[in-house]
């Protein structure tokens, strides 16, 4: 018998070697108690959270929590059904209305996770004979959506407008074209030149889907994302987003002005063949989305935090993923996986949690310590974080 698990042997060996050195397992951390959006007790230590994507700190918002508790009492713990059968409650419709209001768009469709939103929309929309042109650094859920559909998949170099245009022009005449971009790329925290890219996509007859998972609630005058910030949201055919970042719960969505959009509810398999989100999740999400519409002060503070951390780490001698702060993600580039893991552990001992990101999730085989800031981080916490990085970086020999 061939052991189907033999294909994982190299990864098992890499993990064994890493943990044999005595380092705490970076992928097995337990949050024992969560004190606030920015502080938790992890592995027995009080820890500042700097790797949660909880950008707007909505997870402990009193109105959000109250809405969830009320929904639990009124509607029960779960729907036990698909959106197209018994799983659409008033809360699901209210949440979709909140999204339409938030983005100023005609249609909104809520999925059980952000991953399923990309999987469902992409695989359903782009079928056999169609072409998907996408950035090579796209998120796993986008790639999986491409793989699940039957379209021809054509990647181009990250943020390279000329490479994208060349590929669009080579697509056979008459074929359907979908260009997939992200507002913020989550590994390095860099943004896309959406305005120019969308103009080129439209000139070449493509529909455009933009994943704004890491910008919702924070970037743009109304927190609608990078496309809004660059003044091109009206040219985006489909915005994909998530509730598991700024909104502070779980779920995914697509908003659009396409006149035939609603038909997707009947043909999109990751929407149909799964249970809908629990009512408590819908009510927390709705409350959070509506509060995010008026979050200008929090947005301004988050930008300050991001800029301060970026400058602080750069001044201490760390190599960062972007020349300046472009989002609420600051990626610190590590020389290799071993020192990345050592630095990650040294930071945890200092009382700081960041994400350790490594290939294949990262571009160009990089090991990254990815920091995501929160609007609830105080200015003092950001200074504390910079001090922790300095001590850990010197101890590990990175700076």
């Amino acid at each position, binding site marked *: 018998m061939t052991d189907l698990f033999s294909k994982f042997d190299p990864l098992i060996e890499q993990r064994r070697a890493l943990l044999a050195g005595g380092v705490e397992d970076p992928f097995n951390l337990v949050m024992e108690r969560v004190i606030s959006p920015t502080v938790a007790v992890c592995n027995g230590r009080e820890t500042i959270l700097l790797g949660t994507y909880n950008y707007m700190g909505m997870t402990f918002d009193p109105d959000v929590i109250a809405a969830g508790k009320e929904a639990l009492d009124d509607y029960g713990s779960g729907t036990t059904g698909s959106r197209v059968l018994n799983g659409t409650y008033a809360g699901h419709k209210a949440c979709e209305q909140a999204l339409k209001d938030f983005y100023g768009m005609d249609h909104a469709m809520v999925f059980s996770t952000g991953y399923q939103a990309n999987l469902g929309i992409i695989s359903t929309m782009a079928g056999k004979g169609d072409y998907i042109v996408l950035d090579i650094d796209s998120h796993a859920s986008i790639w999986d959506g491409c793989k699940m559909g039957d379209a021809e998949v054509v990647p181009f170099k990250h943020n390279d407008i000329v490479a994208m245009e060349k590929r669009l022009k*080579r697509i056979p005449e008459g074929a359907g074209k979908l260009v997939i971009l992200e507002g913020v790329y989550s590994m390095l925290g860099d943004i896309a030149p959406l305005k120019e890219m969308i103009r080129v996509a439209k000139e070449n007859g493509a529909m455009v889907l933009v994943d704004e998972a890491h910008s919702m609630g924070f970037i743009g005058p109304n927190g609608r994302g990078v496309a809004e910030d660059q003044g091109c949201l009206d040219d985006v055919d489909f915005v994909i987003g998530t509730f598991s970042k700024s909104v502070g719960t779980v779920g995914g969505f697509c908003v659009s002005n396409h006149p035939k959009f609603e038909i997707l509810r009947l043909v999109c398999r990751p929407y149909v063949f799964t249970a809908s989100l629990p009512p408590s999740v819908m009510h927390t999400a709705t409350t959070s989305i509506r509060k995010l519409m008026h979050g200008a002060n929090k947005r301004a503070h988050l930008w300050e935090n991001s800029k301060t951390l970026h400058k602080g780490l750069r001044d201490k001698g760390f190599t960062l993923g972007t020349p300046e702060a472009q989002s609420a993600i600051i990626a610190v580039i590590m020389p290799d996986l071993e020192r990345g893991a050592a630095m990650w552990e040294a930071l945890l001992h200092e009382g700081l949690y960041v994400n350790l990101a490594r290939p294949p999730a990262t571009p160009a085989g990089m090991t990254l310590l990815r920091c995501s800031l929160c609007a609830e981080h105080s200015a003092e916490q950001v200074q504390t974080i910079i001090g922790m990085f300095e001590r850990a970086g010197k101890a590990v020999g990175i700076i």
Partner: protein
Amino acid sequence: MDRAATAEKIAELVEPFNKKGIAITEATTFAGDLEWDSLTVMDFVAAIEDDFDIIISMNQQAEIENYGQLIDAVTKLQG
């Protein structure tokens, strides 16, 4: 461009990517023999696409494991 001319052009294009100076035959595999990672593959595919003005989609790339198959595919894609 016929197969021989296509093969000649690809031989030129592959050279800067063949950093280990491996002797390439039609049976040489990209992942196994040349040990290319996904980024090198992307850059090489882009170089071929730009030179021949074609698209080699991910779906087509999945079918191309060795050098001979690449020459066949590029010859065919030029229509």
